[in-house]
């Protein structure tokens, strides 16, 4: 079973990270899911694949009533992001799934109907959760051609999808990045191969540099905090991407 860890809390505004499943079969990539709670409302970011639904659902329900999740945010269309959609819909058929317009006719293959999806235009959109306004930030081509991250100006947290992701070996899979230099080695190969557009990368670095970020939460690997966020953006800006090794 995964663990639900509260990574930010201010009154009724909360970020819960659902992470690290020791029973996860090794043929499935490890993913992080994040629940942003504001009062009685919540949005689940990149809810994950259907195979890990039991682990996510059980961990999440230790902290929050799953029926009160009103929104899902899919950073892009991959199965490890949103193939559990039909299962979440079973518990709340009214749930809304925010997804790039580009994938609005692809993601319904995982479930849902015309009323399920709220399509996000390329420029991004604000998403209101409880009394809090969150911002969907464009991150197209990083790696998916229709890709968004989510910024919470109150918590100063950026959910960065696959950007910042690291494939951590056992023993080094801490929730937060401990040693940036050591950690980033596990992120390098992933970013070189998966991120395909130099221009998109530069745009993203310039866009997020203007945000006040205290935590950057990727979908795989550990969370960057404080100065590590700036270090990551600088590292990424310099990294040669779109490279097939060998």
């Amino acid at each position: 079973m995964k663990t639900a860890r509260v990574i930010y809390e201010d009154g009724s505004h909360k970020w819960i990270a659902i992470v690290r499943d020791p029973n996860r079969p090794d043929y499935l990539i490890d993913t992080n899911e994040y629940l942003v709670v504001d009062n009685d409302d919540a949005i689940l970011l990149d809810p994950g694949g259907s195979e890990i639904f039991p682990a996510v659902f059980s961990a999440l329900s230790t902290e929050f009533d799953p029926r009160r999740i009103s929104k899902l945010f899919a950073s892009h269309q991959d199965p490890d992001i949103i193939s559990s959609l039909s299962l979440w819909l079973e518990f709340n058929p009214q749930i809304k799934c925010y997804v790039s317009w580009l994938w609005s006719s692809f993601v319904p293959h995982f479930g849902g109907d015309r009323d399920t999806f709220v399509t996000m235009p390329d420029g991004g959109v604000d998403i209101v959760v409880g009394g809090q306004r969150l911002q969907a930030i464009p991150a197209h081509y990083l790696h998916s051609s229709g890709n968004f991250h989510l910024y919470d100006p109150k918590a100063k947290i950026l959910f960065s999808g696959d950007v910042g992701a690291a494939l951590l070996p056992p023993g080094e899979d801490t929730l937060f990045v401990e040693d940036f230099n050591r950690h980033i080695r596990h992120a390098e190969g992933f970013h070189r191969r998966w991120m395909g557009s130099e221009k998109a990368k530069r745009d993203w670095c310039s866009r997020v540099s203007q945000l006040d970020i205290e935590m950057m939460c990727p979908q795989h690997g550990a969370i960057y905090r404080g100065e590590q966020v700036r270090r990551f953006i600088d590292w990424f800006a310099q990294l040669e991407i779109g490279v097939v090794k060998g």
Partner: protein
Amino acid sequence: MAGMSQETGQELRRIVRTNEEIKRVVATAFKINLMAMNAIFLAKRAGQSALGFGVLSNELRRFAIDLQKQMSLLREMTYGSVATVTAMVKQARLNRVLERARKESSGIGRSLIDEFLRTRHNVAFSRHNEQINSLNRRLSQMIADTTQLVELGSVLARSAKIEAAYGGAFSGALMQVSSDFERTIDAIQRSLESLNKQQDANP
């Protein structure tokens, strides 16, 4: 739960087999239609000496058209079965995942899943099961109707063979055509027998 998904998997494979057999009969029914057209022309050429054969050829053509219609109804029905079984397979998979979630959960999570499995899921599954059973009953009935129709075709083919003997100079050609009819209708009968066996094997 695993048994449920095994059953739906078997049901899906059975429907695929049924559909393949139906496709075979449809192709043969089309062949009979063409054969009957040729037989009509041949009977016209043979004139007075093949009047009886001509009548039978017309009947065989009507039979071929009826058979094609029957087969297209059967195909529609199997398509409906595929849709229902696919929904059942999906439901069974969903059930499997939820059962795992139930085992891992405690507190509110567990009671939510318990309630869910007790009500909506099982209801949906039994509704699909009822649909499948009803489709199977209708399919069996339609196969029985088709078997009867094909028996009529078989009688017509045998009669055509007898009439061919009175075809004078065209007797050889008419005999050849009516033997072809007989063989083709035999093939359809074998396909229908196989369809029947598949239906009987259905629990």
